[in-house]
């Protein structure tokens, strides 16, 4: 069987799972729901593996699987005045980049489905949860496998919807509803940018297919029609990046992600740590050829990434909710990935996406296991001493913590260190310093979490009796822990002795996706690669391990045993502590400026509607009525008045005349005689 032509099945399995569970899940019970939900995710994983295996055997690791023409809205003039057809195929595209994404999304996705069987047992609307989870898988796979920007956009919006539905899963909670809405609207702001970017791409290249855009760009570069640094590439780069800021929680749109922890913990692991939030990084990496045309846009991306990494890491230092620590840590790690893309280390960014997916999913699922054990307690101040009570959870989480802290040979070290190294060699010493500092902070807050949760005396309520989670939850933890240890080894740095690895397999695999010659840039790049940097690289690696070590040591001295050092420190640096504990008041500022601003504008315009526009309408109605009354008055007093006046006038004038019109014959005779006499008198005169 040619699995590459069955790519469309990969998202279709979970879609079918969604339909079946959504329609019949309630009636058929949890056993059925589990089978359909997990089964469809597993099928997607198996088919992904088979397809990727066939892909790597091909000479050229690219494959497009077109299903049908989806949207055909007529011709359009492009920026060059050429006529293009706005015709979009429902098509899937597998290349090394989507291969990496699809493998870990389906793999980790499947594990989290399994884990949810244990975690969600007995929850209301169990079938609904699995249906949404499947719908998410469908959307995410469409996002990754779509062969053009519009397909990606469908998946992009779809995962946003599922995120909304799953954050708001505990529907009765006001905070869940608020968080869900906040996530959707913040993402919509990003989508606004993304959709503008997508349209600009079509307007510039006349196509939205990734391969087509790339080919058109390469042609344009060759013919000189496109030059690196053109304004259009800056515009596209910034517009797409606004989208990435929404989905991948970067400044200024990151605020939704910490709130998204309102959702059930498996959701936090799957959507808000491992997969969906990396969609922005994926999209940036997918658009690498466009970014390579705009150094300015790259610079913006890199700076925002580094700033986000720093901001989120500082907030994470003082959080007490175990999921909030992990949430800010996710934002911070996403910052690293975005930084990688910004300095042009696309493959390394994706490498970190991959390793992070493993250890962060592990950490979240571990946190879920802790919360499960603690009867839904999330506050680390009420934990402590759990090490021996839930040993599997402890050991796996410890592995995840070491991995994220950047200690070799665990996964996080290789990807993060590569990013830092390439940031420095890319000519960004300041960003490197920020990244290095954040590495120290990361080690600190992660070990703080580990110590507060698992070490020291128990601070839990006496009636809470922690118990290890069922195997259906711990087995996924163990698998992910193994992954967190080993995943880095597929991308060993250049300084690794050749007998271990002759090259960085991961980056070599991704190379075809990111080779793009922007004319001029390429030559300098290859020159840089030629030189031997082994010594520097090893020294820098040692430096980052040392920084992480300092972070761990600090956490150890402050949190390993109960002490009042953290409290004293917080009191001494009151303002700084308050600033961090309140997350720099960003939520409050956004509320005041944006939410209230928009509401005030709405209210104001509504008043305009009622007073000005309707005022005009009602005014003209009033005017009509008034003028009708006026005409009545005019009619009565002027028109009729004139008539009556003439009547009266004639009447008045006529009274002397009337006096003589008595109707008595003798009067007339008398008058006649008088008249005759006067006449005679006159003649005789």
């Amino acid at each position, binding site marked *: 069987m040619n699995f590459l032509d069955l790519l469309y099945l990969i998202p279709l399995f979970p879609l079918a799972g969604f339909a079946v569970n959504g329609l019949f899940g309630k009636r058929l019970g949890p056993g059925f729901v589990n089978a359909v939900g997990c089964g469809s995710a597993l099928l997607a994983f198996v088919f992904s593996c088979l397809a990727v295996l066939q892909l790597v055997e091909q000479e050229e690791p690219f494959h497009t699987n077109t299903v049908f023409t989806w949207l055909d809205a007529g011709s359009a003039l492009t920026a060059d005045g050429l006529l293009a057809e706005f015709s979009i195929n429902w098509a899937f595209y597998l290349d090394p980049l989507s291969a990496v994404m699809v493998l870990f999304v389906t793999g980790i996705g499947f594990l989290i489905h399994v884990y949810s069987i244990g975690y969600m047992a007995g929850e209301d609307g169990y079938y609904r949860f699995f249906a949404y989870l499947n719908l998410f898988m469908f959307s995410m796979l469409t996002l990754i496998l779509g062969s053009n920007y519009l397909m990606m956009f469908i998946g992009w919006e779809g995962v946003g919807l599922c995120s909304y539905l799953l954050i708001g899963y505990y529907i009765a909670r006001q905070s869940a*509803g608020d968080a869900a809405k906040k996530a959707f609207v913040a993402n919509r702001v990003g989508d606004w940018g993304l959709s503008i970017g997508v349209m600009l791409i*079509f307007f510039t290249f006349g196509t939205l297919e990734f391969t087509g855009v790339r080919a058109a760009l390469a042609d344009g570069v060759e013919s000189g029609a496109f030059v690196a640094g053109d304004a259009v590439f800056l515009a596209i780069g910034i517009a797409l990046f606004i989208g990435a800021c929404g989905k991948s929680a970067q400044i200024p749109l990151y605020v939704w992600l910490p709130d998204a922890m309102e959702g059930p913990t498996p959701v936090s692991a799957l959507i808000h740590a491992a997969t969906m939030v990396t969609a922005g990084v994926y999209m940036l990496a997918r658009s690498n050829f466009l970014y390579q045309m705009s150094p300015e846009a790259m610079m913006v991306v890199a700076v925002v990434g580094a700033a986000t990494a720093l901001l989120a890491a500082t907030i994470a230092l003082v959080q007490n909710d175990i999921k909030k620590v992990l949430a800010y840590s996710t934002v911070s790690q996403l910052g690293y990935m975005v930084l990688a893309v910004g300095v042009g280390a696309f493959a390394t960014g994706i490498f970190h996406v991959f390793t992070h997916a493993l250890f962060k999913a592990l950490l979240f699922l571990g946190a879920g296991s802790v919360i499960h054990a603690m009867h839904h307690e999330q506050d680390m101040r009420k934990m402590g001493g759990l090490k021996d009570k839930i040993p599997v959870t402890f050991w796996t989480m410890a592995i995840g913590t070491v991995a994220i802290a950047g200690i070799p040979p665990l996964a996080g070290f290789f990807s993060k260190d590569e990013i830092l190294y390439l940031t420095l060699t890319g000519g960004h010493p300041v960003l490197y310093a920020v990244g290095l500092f954040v590495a120290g902070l990361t080690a600190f807050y992660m070990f703080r979490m580990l110590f507060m949760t698992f070490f020291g005396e128990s601070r839990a309520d006496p009636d809470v009796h922690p118990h290890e989670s069922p195997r259906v939850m711990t087995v996924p933890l163990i698998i992910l822990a193994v992954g967190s240890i080993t995943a880095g080894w597929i991308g060993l740095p250049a300084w690794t002795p050749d007998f271990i690895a002759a090259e960085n397999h991961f980056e070599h695999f991704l190379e075809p996706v990111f080779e793009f010659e922007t004319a001029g840039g390429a030559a300098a790049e290859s020159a840089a690669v030629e030189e031997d940097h082994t010594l520097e690289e090893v020294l820098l690696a040692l430096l980052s391990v040392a920084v992480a070590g300092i972070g761990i040591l600090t956490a150890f001295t402050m949190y390993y045993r109960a002490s009042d050092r953290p409290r004293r420190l917080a009191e001494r640096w009151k303002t700084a502590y308050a600033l961090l504990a309140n997350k720099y008041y960003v939520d409050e500022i956004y509320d005041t400026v944006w939410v209230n601003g928009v509401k005030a504008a709405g209210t104001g315009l509504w008043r305009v509607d009622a007073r000005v526009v309707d005022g005009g309408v009602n005014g003209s109605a009033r005017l009509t009525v008034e003028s009708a009354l006026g005409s009545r008055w005019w009619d009565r007093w002027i028109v009729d008045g004139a008539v009556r006046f003439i009547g009266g006038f004639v009447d008045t004038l006529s009274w002397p005349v009337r006096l003589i019109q008595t109707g008595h014959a003798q009067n007339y005779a008398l008058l006649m005689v008088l008249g005759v006499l006067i006449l005679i008198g006159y003649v005789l005169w």
Partner: protein
Amino acid sequence: MDLNNVPILSIVTFLPLAGAIVLMMFSSENKGLIRLWANLVAAAGFLVSVPLFFAFDYENSAAMQFRETLSWIPSLGVRYSVGIDGISLLLVLLTTLLGAIAVLSSWESIQHRAKEYYVFMLMLQTGMLGVFVSLDFFMFYVFWEVMLVPMYFLIGVWGGPRKLYAAIKFFLYTLVGSVLLLLGILALYFQYPAIAAAAPEIAAQFGLERTFDILAFQEMGPFLNPDLQWWIFLAFFVGFAIKVPMFPFHTWLPDAHVEAPTAGSVILAGVLLKMGTYGFVRFSLPILPDATVEFVPFMIALAIIAIIYGALVAMMQKDMKSLVAYSSVSHMGFVMLGMFALNPNGLNGSLLQQINHGISTGALFLIVGIIYDRRHTREIAEFGGLSSIMPKYAVIFAIMTMSSIGLPLLNGFMGEFPILMGALQENIWWAVAGASGIVLGAAYMLWLYQRTMFGKIDNPKNEGLPDLNAREMATLIPLVILAFWIGIYPAPFFRALDGPVDRLVEIVREDYFEANPIEAELTPPAAVAAAGEAE
């Protein structure tokens, strides 16, 4: 299917009227029979229109099909002339479908003067269909006016507390527009001999001395003197802009919607507003192309104002119906934005979006009506947590909310995206401003949804509200299916619109299609790889 020998459009148009006339003979005591009959007639009205969809020749979707022409008032050149192209095809089908749904939705809520109600509903149906099928200005105007009367009574008799204010406001507003529209039509009519003289060879095709023939004007309109075009455009503009409604002629809409009975709102939003947009594409654009181009900045400005203004005002509404009404203002702003981008993407999106708006907003009014039937209030603050007791209702409401905010794979996106594409091709800032409407759209719709559906039931009056019954499901399911159909596979709809749209663009911008087509797509690496593998 061969419908050439059947006066299918006359049947579709006048069937509801015939049904209404029969209905008048019923005893008003027998309410069961009355509503049964009305439903049968409305359903039959939809069923007879369905063959149009299959018999329509999509290859020639720009041409008027199913034509019927009879002399009516020969001394004035008035004819009975009907026909539809791809644009009116979709509108006719939307009208017959929404008509049947609206009648069905009144099953329980209308008890008072049921006979008169259904007579008016059916008359309204004929009036609306007549507008969309007329190819003669005189006839068009007759239907345009006829339709006002039943709507006036529907609001004025079966409406809410301020029904008289709303009814009169609606009537007068539209009447003002109609008068100007009539002036425009008469101006064209009296100019005809002059333009016929200017373009004798085209006039010869029609062979008329005086005419109200819309097709003749479409052919010859461009020969009108530009100054005159400008004035006629302005007259038409007022007539159609009030119907759309465009800012600042929109304030009749929230009042009319809030006061109208549910079915009235569905028809009002679903069909009546489309007469404005239909008027623009059928008359203003093709007959007055020079003036159209001149008015573009003005129209686009009003469209963008409507998108943002409508959305902001919708956000702060306390009544569910007026929220949906203001959202209509915003959505119709999108329709106008796409239309006056005057390119194929914009127009295609715009024409599809007016259908989408009929589906989504129609469904949203039904959804609000259903809850109003149960609680006799539409105050958002009265509700909360309904999803726990009305799960089916919650699901359909969610789907329609998503459709309204333009989520891909639902219909709204299929309109919005091409519209914004079209806008961007003309001026990137139009798209940037227009697209902000989708952010605001998400905000107000999700806020509405959260306040009514999420949370706990905290109002004791809402406890024990029944979920959707079979009849209510029957009114909503067709719209849900359509929403998904258009969202997932819009090709049949775009196929109907593509021809008329290209023709419109050719009339308004003569050299648009003369640009060089983009070079054939370069062979993507994938194809090379596949070829290599095949060997």
